[in-house]
């Protein structure tokens, strides 16, 4: 209890820290939303400066932060200059899609990497293990952007899957089932891209920790007792080996969320990614900060979930044996 309480307090501090740094960074980044208008010779600088003051961009950083905090307390999280609307609903309408993509990616990642990691460890040194290791090191090393763009190009060229968006233009006419199929088929590519990069890391870690556990005496003993291979691996070894992998889970959830932003942009998935990228490039100040705060929230949430799972798995943490002293 006290451990969780401490984690929550830290998370709150973290979010405040992120918001302050966000404001500092946005202050540092040159240019403002209305700068693009300067390129249009027909718009006068007076109009631009009057627009700036309308949106409070000429205020000092502290004033803006104060205003933002107040608006955050009203759950608005500021006001988007480009959309002329409060930030929170804008974000929420896209966050749903991002969460859908990220959680699916997460599930798929674990579905793929747990069997692969355990299996590779069980057959360490053989073909399967070698190919898993080579494949994972390849996937880890190529930048995600390159993987994503290349896969996308292949898919487009070969017409394997529909690309981009979430539903086709007129989904109302379709039955629920057809709609679901449609969404699934469009989600497939971004999910695969997400899964590839993330599971490469998890497979590696899981393989290593399973190998470690396989070496321990209790497994040797269990083997001596004649417990079946499958049962041994998944009932006895995996739960012990899972603990370091679970602590990875927090990172991987956060990684999936931030990774999904990139994949969304490349695949045209209507999530937070395109919105935040666009807002960043156009300096839609509060929208950017809102987006960052949301992804920081996801990250903190992911770590918290991982901590709770660890707590459930590893009682040493609860007593503070690992943390205190």
């Amino acid at each position, binding site marked *: 209890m*006290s451990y969780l309480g401490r984690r929550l307090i830290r998370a709150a501090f973290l979010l405040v820290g992120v918001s302050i740094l966000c404001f500092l960074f946005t202050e540092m980044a040159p240019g403002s939303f209305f700068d693009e208008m300067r390129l249009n010779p027909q718009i006068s600088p007076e109009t631009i400066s009057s627009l700036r003051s309308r949106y409070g961009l000429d205020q000092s950083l502290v004033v803006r932060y104060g205003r933002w905090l107040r608006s955050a307390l009203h759950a608005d999280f500021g006001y988007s200059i480009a959309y002329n609307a409060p930030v929170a609903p804008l974000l929420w309408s896209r966050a749903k899609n991002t969460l859908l993509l990220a959680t699916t990616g997460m599930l798929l990642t674990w579905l793929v990497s747990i069997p692969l990691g355990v299996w590779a460890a069980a057959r360490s040194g053989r073909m399967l293990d070698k190919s898993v290791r080579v494949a994972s090191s390849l996937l880890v090393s190529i930048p995600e952007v390159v993987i994503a763009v290349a896969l996308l190009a292949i898919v487009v060229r070969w017409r394997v899957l529909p690309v981009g968006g979430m539903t086709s233009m007129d989904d109302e006419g379709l039955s629920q089932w057809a709609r679901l199929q449609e969404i699934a088929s469009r989600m497939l590519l971004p999910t695969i891209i997400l899964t590839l990069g993330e599971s490469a890391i998890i497979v590696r870690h899981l393989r290593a920790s399973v190998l470690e556990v396989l070496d321990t005496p209790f497994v040797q003993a269990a083997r001596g007792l004649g417990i079946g291979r499958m049962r041994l691996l998944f009932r006895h070894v995996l739960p012990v080996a899972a603990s370091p992998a679970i602590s990875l889970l927090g990172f991987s959830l956060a990684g999936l969320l931030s990774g999904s932003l990139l994949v969304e942009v490349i695949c045209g998935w209507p999530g937070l990614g395109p919105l935040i990228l666009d807002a960043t490039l156009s300096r839609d100040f509060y929208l950017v900060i809102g987006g960052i705060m949301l992804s920081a929230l996801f990250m903190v949430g992911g770590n918290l979930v991982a901590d709770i799972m660890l707590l459930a798995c590893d009682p040493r943490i609860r*007593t*503070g044996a690992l943390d*205190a002293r």
Partner: protein
Amino acid sequence: MASNFPGSERQGHPLLHVQKLSKHYVRGREWGKSVAVTAVCDVDFEIHAGQTLALVGASGAGKSTVARCVARLERPDSGEIWLDGTDIARLNSRDLLPIRSNIQMIFQDAETSMNPRFSAAEVIEEPLQIQGASRSERRDIATAVMREVGLPAEWLKRPVLEFSGGQQQRLAIARALSTRPKMLVLDEALSSLDLSTQAQIANLLLDLQSAHSMAYLLISHDLTLVARMADVLSVMSDGRIVEMGATQQVIADPKHAQTQRLLASARAAESKFDLASGASA
């Protein structure tokens, strides 16, 4: 310094004099309030040069805490620890450093108390290195103490992992000897060894004690060993010393219930052992 402790019949000042030693631990925090657990409470005793005092008691009685406080691995909450005329209970680590060479600790598990990456020489020289001795000085002392504990000096270059359990314990003793201490704290130092090795090491310790007239603070739950080595026996229970006296006297006539319990269980174990050995013979 008037003293009414057993063994105080000896001449001169005691080498170690512990007064009203107390130590609490903080076990986690619950809603901002710290929950203290008392480990040691108002412990008094003294040891003279060349003498051995044994602390016995059930596990959790606070023996090890006393040992750690005396070796200043922990800072006691209150009380005084006079070592050779200096109260070390409150000293900071810089002032403590020169005094450290006078008191050394030998741990229960010799293997884990030595960095497996080190060679024997590195292990033995570590306290000297911390004290700031020169390289050649360290080498000389290391060779000398190796011989003293009965290990060939050529083994100095060997990694620690290649030594057997008994040899590792000898190595640990050699390390403790390297600073020529006046006092050794033996925290269950022999309990993880098999019986014959234990006897060898015990003999070694007794020989060293008479050679250098060192004082020993012996922490143990093994009454047979205590009976053999200790001059004074003190029994701890729940952080307090409940009984203290000359070893033979306490064993012969235990006063406190805790002492009686300890003795009874030791005798039971002993008879079992006798049975076992008898059967095997």
